């Protein structure tokens, strides 16, 4: 009986109310999933990070903090800082490019909205790696972009774009732009146009309307987009390898190297733990700010 009550009232939030058996049963798959794929791997990572490696690269269970000492040496802190810089730049560009797109889609007629959203999602039908290789063909010095710009005489010589930091940022923005557009779209679609009109009627200029009405009302979408773009962009390693020519290591590349080339799992695990803590902290800050807003 109590289970049925719990179900029927699940929509109403009541402080101190415990979920019944049925509630737990329905939660069970999610809890098992969380335990198996989040809690247990994180625990393994945390344990490994305090271990040592043997000559073969196997993990030896003897307590050591060497890996953490290494993580906090200037080289790796510098790499962390650089990765955050690239991710921040990517996120900023994604907001600037993604907001207008999301806004236009949200304001379009229903039929067009569906079509435009489909266009945003179509790239996901193709493997991410194949799309990255396509960018190599576009950006290389005898590639499409260079030929086009030379043809219309914007540049004189072949463009040296591939294997530069610019190419890395292009790749990152391309990869993560949909993750910015979609949440902002979700917020913008719910926004009541009457509020924007009211702002205009009350004498707000377009800029002020944008700043004081539109942005605050789409903030949840922007925050969600920032989280979805910034966090994975820090750890990305395939784009820096393929489009950046693996010249400048990002934190994702360094971690990947520990598990293969260097065979130093404890150090890789320590980097992973610090990296995850960074996520948690940035998430926490964003949550607090969005709650405050």
């Amino acid at each position, binding site marked *: 009986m109590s289970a049925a009550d719990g179900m029927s009232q699940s929509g109403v939030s009541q402080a101190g109310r415990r979920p019944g058996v049925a509630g737990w049963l329905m939660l069970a798959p999610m809890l098992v999933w969380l335990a198996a794929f989040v809690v247990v791997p994180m625990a393994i990572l945390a344990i490994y990070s305090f271990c040592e*490696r043997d*000559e*073969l*690269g*196997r993990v030896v269970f003897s307590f050591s903090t060497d890996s953490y000492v*290494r993580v906090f040496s200037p*080289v*790796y802190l*510098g*790499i962390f800082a*650089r990765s955050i810089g690239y991710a921040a730049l990517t996120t900023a560009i994604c907001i600037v490019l993604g907001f207008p797109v999301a806004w236009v889609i949200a304001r379009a007629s229903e039929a067009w909205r569906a079509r435009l959203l489909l266009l945003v999602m179509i790239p996901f039908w193709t493997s991410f790696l194949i799309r990255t290789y396509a960018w*190599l063909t576009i950006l*290389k*010095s*005898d*590639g499409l972009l260079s030929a086009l710009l030379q043809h219309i005489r914007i540049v004189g010589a072949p463009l*040296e774009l*591939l*294997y530069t930091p610019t190419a890395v940022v292009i790749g990152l923005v391309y990869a993560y732009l949909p993750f910015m557009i979609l949440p902002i779209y979700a917020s913008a679609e719910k926004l009541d146009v009457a509020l924007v009109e009211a702002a205009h009627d009350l004498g707000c200029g377009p800029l002020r309307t944008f700043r004081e009405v539109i942005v605050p009302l789409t903030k949840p979408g922007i925050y969600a987009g920032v989280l979805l773009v910034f966090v994975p962009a820090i750890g990305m390693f395939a784009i820096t*390898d393929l489009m950046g*020519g*693996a*010249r*400048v*290591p990002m934190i994702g590349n*360094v971690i990947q*190297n*520990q*598990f*293969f*080339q*260097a*065979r*130093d799992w404890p*150090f890789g695990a320590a980097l992973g733990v610090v990296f995850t803590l960074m996520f948690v902290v940035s998430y926490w800050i964003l949550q607090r700010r969005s709650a405050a807003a």
Partner: protein
Amino acid sequence: MKIIRLLTAVSFLGFVSGTRAAELNLFAWSEYVPQTVIDGFTKETKIKVNYETFASGEEMLAKMLAGGASYDLVQPPDYIAEVLIRNKLLTPIDAKKLPNLKNVAPEFLGMPHDPEQKFTVPFMIGTVGIVVNTDVVKEPIRGYKDVFQPKFKNRIVVVNDNRELVSWVLVTLGLDQNDITPANLAKVKPVLAEWIKLVKVFDSDSPKTALLSGEVDLGVVWSGEAARLYEEDKKFAYILPEEGAHPFVDVMAIPANAENVDAAHKFLDYILRPEVSKLISDEFPYTNPNLEARKLLSEEQLENPASYPKIENYDTFRDIGKAATLIDQLVTDLKSAQ
């Protein structure tokens, strides 16, 4: 009911024993064992081959040690084979089951990684050398010091392999490529710092791509990649660095926990047949250690300087154990510092 149960049990047994007798789990480099060879083997022996791939010797070692999967045949590079032998992770090979082993050139048997020739069979041999686009670079390139010059800044591709990078500097300085000590790495550091600044692309998977597209004009790459470039266009010359080239031997070996040791031997002997070994050379033009197979190759294949370079001394990499961490630290540091 009983009959159904019995039938189920019997068919299940048949299934188990059937798969056991007719399967081979092969763990090898990507782009190294042609599908035609695998299909030919299955057709002849009815043994199904599960071909799983890796992209570096370290990756192979990591997956072997992690357990979970059991492989019947692995394809480690020389220095990884050495580690596996030392840690008793391989099954000895029964030479009596490999009549075709006699086709292998003696210089590739009993090498330092397997001095008693008990655990490995050489698959292909390669070198790491210099590729020059002679249409663009007109001056003679003889060794590493000619490649890594400031005027070639941003015109160089190298394999993205930290140990390779360090070994090139070591031989340039006249040091032993396997002597990885903090003192030697301190000597390597200033030279490598300058070299890394000149490189435009680090790519182990397909360094030929950047050379083919004209993105770069010089490369230090695997000889198989260089051989394919030469097949594509004769302007890509292959040069063994005068400071000392690094040759590598990729071998086949049977892990200690292999379940289908018999099938593994059959496969080994199959690929040692001259006509089968030739098929491998056709697709992946490394140095074939199989002398009988070489007789079947065309003149053009044998004259490809990247496939069959004139090399006297096969001085391969040895296992360096924990020093791999020192190398990783050094190269990460230098790449970040630019």
